[in-house]
Structures are given as structure tokens and as C-alpha cells.
């Protein structure tokens, strides 16, 4: 931990000939209170110029050394990641620190970002998959909880956001408190100390502390259709709340999710919808687990003529979890997959940096990767079956269909 509270984690991977980093500050949507959209607006402006450099000069400086740097707003965090060479690490981190500590928020850039956000609204409104998933998030995490609402806020809200709102948000939340930076690749102790820790320690404290994350309100399952008659394909999104990352059910649930909708070409779900019936090119599930809650979701893209059959088949697979729970061979395959995937999933700098960041953010401890195989092996089969039955249910899930479907009544 640096003197200003920022935490730096690093891991050398000398065979990858560059440095990758991933970091975060607790300045995501959770921190914006009811000023919806201000966190997203701020994140998009951090490359919009600093007190030292205009947006154009900043881009010239960054790309002139061949580095990349991106900022993204999320539910809990303002995250950033980038790539640079060993020789350009110091300059890249200095630029990162400048962007975080002295953004200029020029009016010209604010106008540009406002236009970009409006355009994104239009683009997302025309995308069946995005609309279905956005609506599902809203249903699963109701009452404008940060886990469920659109990070961009609303179109009207974006119109109202002023420079002073962005400056206030930045001053209150963007600083070294809660900052985590994970770096991997072609680095050693000296490089970390002189080129990363030293510039990072110059970050000044922000005004407010780390925002509390309230648990999501209760979910009441609903069915929604979003007619988009001009589209060719319909997207189905089904989901329900699950557990936070540190919850005792998490690892069993993660394995159950793998078996139901991920392993191989999408687990049980993909085998049925894609492999056996040829109904969908994609049909898979996801599990997101955050600090105060989580969501399990299922996505499938189908021809509207096959919509009824696809929904029935999904229902049948959900019911099968109760009538024909995962058998021992399935669980064994899943465990082998999770243990083996550790080697494969950490072959890239960017993936290692992301995992290091994840471990630090959720307090899993730096020995987590060594313990992971034991955690998986120790999972009891009946526990995996139990969590699947508990969390992956038709009655407990919301469903959204977006596409050329009309305002039909849906049942799952």
C-alpha cells in the first residue's frame, strides 16, 4: 500500500514483452447518488484533457509512445486499463495520474461526450441483445439500484448534467482512497517502484470516503416484450438475483452455472438449443457476483418463428435441474474444467492483471490462486445441485424478449 492509500499489486511475466495494467477507484454508479449518469459522463471525460495537456496533446503523447489507456464506468467502480512497453511505463503512468488527478473537463469535450452519449442511447435502443439485457437488469435490480440501471442515466438527465456536476463528482470521489492498480508483464521490482509506485503516490486525496453499497431491493419476477419489428432475430434474456462474490454459495453457484450454460458449447442449455435442435447460434448463461449482490442470466438469439419452442426448451432445462440434477460425471467434468482453466485463463498479461485486481478488490488474498484448486475440489456435489435448484428457476426469474415479436404474452 502506498502512503496515500492506493494499493499496488504486481506480477512479473517476462515472456510477455510489454506491461499491462488494470485498476479501479470506487467512483462508479454507486457513488453518483441520484445524479444518474454523472459517473459515466466523468469516466468518458478523463481522456478529454488535463490542466497540463489538451485532449489532442494528450492523445498525441499517449499514442506517440505507442501506449493505450482506457477508462470505463461500472456499477461499483471507475476502472482503467492500459498497455505500454517497459521503456514507456513511467510516462504512461504519469499520464494516467494526470488524467485522474487534474482533468480539465473542457466545455468542448463535455459537448462532444454529450453527443456521444445520445448516440449510444440510439444505438443501444436498436440492439435487440442490449435492450433485452438492459431491461432484465432493471427488473432483477429494481428501483434504480446501480446494479440495474443504465449507466448513462436517461437522455433528459444527460441533457441536464453541467460541468460543475462533473467537477463535484470528480473532487468527491476520484482519488487514491480505494484505488487498486494491478500490473503484469515485463516488469521487475525496480520498475514497479520507480515507474508505477512513484507517480501513483502523487495522487491527492478526494473529498468523500468510499461510498457504501446498499443491497438490491427484492426482485419480483416479470415478463416483458420489447417489439422491434424491423429486426430479423429475437433475443431472449432470462435472469434472477443471486449472491455477492463473498457469499458462501458463490463457488457452488459458479460451478452450477458452468454446467448449466457454459461448459463446452454452452453446457446443458447449449446442447439442447444449439446442438440438438439447431434453434440458436448462441444460448448461454452468465453469473455476475459483486459486493452487495449478483445476477444469474441466460441469453439466446433465435428466429422469431422458433421463439415459443426455444422458451419451452429453456423451461424444460430449468425444470430438469429439479427432476434430473447434475450427475456425478457432469460435476466431475466441471471441476476439472475450473481447475484446468486456471493455467489457460492466465496466459495473457491482460487476464493476469484482471485476476490480480479481482483478488485484491474482493479481498480474496494473494494466495487465492494457489488455494483455488482445493476450493473447487472440496465442493460437495449435493451443494452444487442444491444451489442450481435454488437459484436457477423459472418461477423465480424474469424474462425479456426483444425483437420482431409484437406485444405477445410470454410465459416461462
Amino acid at each position, binding site marked *: 500500500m502506498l502512503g496515500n492509500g492506493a494499493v499496488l499489486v504486481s506480477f512479473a511475466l*517476462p*515472456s*510477455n*514483452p*510489454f506491461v*499491462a495494467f488494470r485498476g479501479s477507484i470506487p467512483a462508479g454508479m454507486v457513488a453518483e447518488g441520484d445524479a444518474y449518469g454523472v459517473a459515466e459522463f466523468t469516466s468518458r471525460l478523463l481522456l478529454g484533457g488535463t490542466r497540463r495537456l489538451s*485532449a489532442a496533446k494528450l*492523445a498525441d503523447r*499517449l*499514442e*506517440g*509512445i*505507442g*501506449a*493505450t489507456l*482506457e477508462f470505463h464506468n461500472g456499477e461499483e467502480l471507475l476502472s482503467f486499463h492500459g*498497455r*505500454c*512497453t517497459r521503456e*514507456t511505463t513511467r510516462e504512461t503512468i504519469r499520464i494516467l495520474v494526470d488524467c485522474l488527478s487534474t482533468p480539465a473537463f473542457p466545455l468542448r469535450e463535455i*459537448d*462532444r461526450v454529450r*453527443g*456521444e452519449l445520445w*448516440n*449510444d442511447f*440510439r*444505438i*443501444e435502443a*436498436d*440492439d435487440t441483445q442490449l435492450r433485452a439485457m438492459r431491461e432484465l437488469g432493471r427488473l432483477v435490480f429494481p428501483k434504480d439500484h446501480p446494479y440495474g440501471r443504465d449507466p448513462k442515466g436517461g437522455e433528459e438527465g444527460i441533457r441536464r448534467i453541467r460541468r460543475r456536476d462533473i467537477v463535484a463528482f470528480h473532487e468527491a470521489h476520484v482519488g487514491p482512497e480505494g484505488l487498486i492498480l494491478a500490473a503484469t508483464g515485463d516488469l521487475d521490482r525496480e520498475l514497479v517502484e520507480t515507474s508505477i509506485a512513484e507517480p501513483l503516490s502523487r495522487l491527492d486525496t478526494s473529498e468523500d470516503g468510499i461510498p457504501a453499497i446498499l443491497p438490491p431491493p427484492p426482485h419480483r419476477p416479470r415478463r416483458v416484450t420489447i417489439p422491434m*419489428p*424491423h*429486426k*430479423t*432475430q429475437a433475443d431472449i434474456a432470462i435472469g434472477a438475483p443471486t449472491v455477492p462474490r463473498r457469499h458462501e454459495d458463490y463457488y457452488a453457484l459458479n460451478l452450477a452455472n458452468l454446467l448449466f450454460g457454459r461448459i*463446452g*458449447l454452452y453446457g446443458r442449455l447449449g446442447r439442447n438449443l444449439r446442438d*440438438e*435442435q*439447431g*434453434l*440458436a*447460434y448462441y444460448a448461454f448463461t452468465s453469473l455476475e457476483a459483486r459486493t452487495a449482490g449478483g445476477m444469474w442470466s441466460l441469453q439466446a*438469439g*433465435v*428466429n422469431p418463428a422458433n421463439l415459443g419452442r426455444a422458451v419451452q426448451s429453456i423451461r424444460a432445462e430449468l425444470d430438469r435441474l429439479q427432476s434430473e440434477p447434475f450427475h456425478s460425471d457432469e460435476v466431475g467434468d466441471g471441476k*476439472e*474444467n*475450473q*481447475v*484446468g*482453466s*486456471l*493455467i*489457460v*485463463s492466465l496466459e*495473457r*498479461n491482460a*487476464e493476469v492483471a484482471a485476476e490480480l485486481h479481482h483478488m485484491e478488490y474482493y479481498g480474496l488474498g494473494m494466495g487465492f490462486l494457489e488455494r483455488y484448486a482445493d476450493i473447487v475440489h472440496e465442493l460437495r456435489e449435493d451443494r452444487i445441485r442444491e444451489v442450481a435448484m435454488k437459484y436457477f428457476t423459472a418461477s423465480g426469474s424474469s424474462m425479456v424478449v426483444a425483437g420482431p415479436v409484437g406485444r405477445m404474452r410470454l410465459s416461462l
Partner: protein
Amino acid sequence: MPTHVETLENGLKVVLRPIPDTKALSTWVVYRIGSRNEVPGMTGSTHWVEHMLFKGGGKLGKGDIDKIISRLGGKMNAFTDTDYTMYFETIPATAMDTALMIESERMRNAAFDPKEVEAERTVVISEREGAENQPEFAVEEELWGLAFHVHPYHWTPIGYKQDLAALDRDSLYRHYLRYYAPNNASLILVGGFDPAVAMQRIREAFAPLRPESPPDPMRLTEPEQHGERRSDLVRPGPADLLEMGWHIPAAGHEDMPALILLSTILGGWRGLVPFASGDWRPRSNRLYRALVDTKLATDVGVRPEMKIDPGLLIVNVTLAKGVSHQRVEAVLDREIAKLASTVPAKAEIDRARRQFHSWARYERDGVTFQGMSLSVGEGLASWDFGDRLRAKVVKVRPERVREVAKSYLIRDRRSVVRFHAQEATT
């Protein structure tokens, strides 16, 4: 990086890149077959064949590939391009024999069970329909169709829906048998292995496979374009789009290094290989400054489509609301004219070169991306295609950038697609 290259007697080219301190292994097989080798009425057949090669045959039953790779915690996929098709699996290095077994079975013994072929028809159609939901796909398909009248680059690898509805099992199987042979493929291994041991295992797995007679050389050449071609798409969509494509020479042509610098100056650089760049959006380039900074557009991209045969240099723009296509086209014309008339400043050339070279490192991030880079190189020319290109980019004189702009970015040889977004009815 140390790379061992050897060709087996049956014509299979083997490229080995050992990385001693890694525990993962990425195995790639690239076949010199893509939509470029298709004929009208059979478009999309190469991509459909790719799907069928996950369904077993020989020593592998249906679902076995999935099961085996999943148990290893591995990742796998395949990609069909216009010029080549690639398959890969990244697994723990200790399981090298498994990857070699899968790929040798896939090369000659795929089953093509008629029932499975039929089940996959709707899957590939679904893949196409998912793409059709995106206006960008319609624009891209229209641009290639407009720019190429004779050459099979006229269609995209996914193929036309009517062909996907009509293709039969035997045609697909013939396509497979004709092109999936050791003498039309390269095997690439990157990761933690001993090259001598790997070579021995490769011989055991692949040497028994019989070669086919070499594929016929491409006979179709796109005639020179005389006069600009335009197309207007009027469809529901979220934003107006503009895409322009200029004919450029083949990937191996001596002008390609200068065209890469030109492309970087115009629109930035995101690497030779797709996927490595993620969401990264370069801003230090002329078109971002001229179109996005000025709020005429919300996004702009430039990419040289490097292909075995002459391809396209493509500019795509997402227009800001209320901005006309004419206005954006005028800005593009002005920027292109500037490039064709004035030699770029040294600082701008240096910045473009540095971006290109940094990306060369970023594309070596792990065994999978390295395998992909070497495979794309093999698909286009040779595994070291990227390294050779990089060596040439260093030597490009600034004057050459102006010269290639003048030679290739010509109005009479460009195709333009304008997407006019209509309000969707609900």
C-alpha cells in the same frame, strides 16, 4: 523469437514456437480455404464446414471435442475468413497429444452425419440473422458486393441466406474433402514444449494423412474499376453510417507498408490481428480530429483489409445526429486530398511507426494471440508475414505515404455505401 519450421512429406507445414516458461500450449491449424474459394450458389459453405468440424468423426464421437477440451479447462474456437480458415485450442501444455489427435482427426475424418448437417443449417442461418440485426453488417456486405463484381470477395464468409437454405450435405462434404488436406494446411504450436518431442508427436499424428492434389490457383481477377460506385441503404436503424472502400493491392505487395502508415495516420492503428485491441479507440489521428472532435461523427475507423488477392482500404463513420452524409464526405475528401498532396510531417510518421511497433508487442500477449498472429501470417503468406511487414514499415519514406495516397485513394476506384437510418416503428 526462436521458431522452428519444417514440412512433412505429405506437405503439412509445421511451425513451432516454444516458450519455455509457460504452462499453456496453443495449437492452431490454418487451412488455405476461405469464401474466396467458393462459387455462386455455394456461398457460406466454408463457414458451414467449419461448424461441422466440431461434431466428431474418426476417433471422435459427437460432442467429444467439447468434452475433452472442457475437461482440460481449455479454450477453443475457429474462424472462417475470405482467405483461410483457422482452428485452435489452448490447453495445459501437458496435454499436447490431445490437441494433436483432435486436429489430425479433424483434418481428414470428420463425419458429416446428414442429421448433424441438417441441425447445423439453422444454426448458421441463426448466426447470419444475428448479424443482420446490426446495420453495420448490411453496410459491410453491401460495400464488398459493390467493390467486387467478379472476384469472390463479392460475398462475405457467412454467405447468402438463400444458399444456406439450399446447400446439401454432399456438396459440403466434397468441399471438405477437397480442401482439408495436409498439403493445404499449416500446423502452428506456441507454448511450453520441447520442439524435438513436439516434432516427433506431430509426425506420429499427421504423417499418415494422405495429401490431396493441390487446389487450383485462383483464376478470377477483379477488373480495374472505372468510376465511383455508390449505394444507398434505407432501413430502420439507430444512426446514419458511411463506409468507403478503395481498392488496394494484395497483402504481399511492396506498397503495403506505406499503406499501413497511411492508414495509421488517417485512423490510428489497432494491430494486425483482430481481437487483440478490445475497445481501444485511437484518437491521435486525422479523421478522429476532423470528424469526432468536430462533432460531425461519433466514431470513425480505418482499416486496410489485407488479403491474398487485392483487397480494400476501408473507412467507416458513424454520423452524429443531424449531420448529413454530404458534409462528412466533404471532410473525408478534404483529408484524402491533403494526404495525396502533402508529405506528412516527420513527427506524425514517427508516431504512426511507434503505434505499429508497440502493437507488435501487444499482439504477443500470451500463447493464443501469438498462435493467431502466426496463423494469420500463414493464411496470407507465411508465418513471419507480420515480422517482415514490420521490418519494411520502418523503412518507408514519408514521401511514399503521399505517393500511395495519390495512387490508391482515387475517387474513380472507390465504392461508397450510405446507410440512411429510418425511425423504427414499434
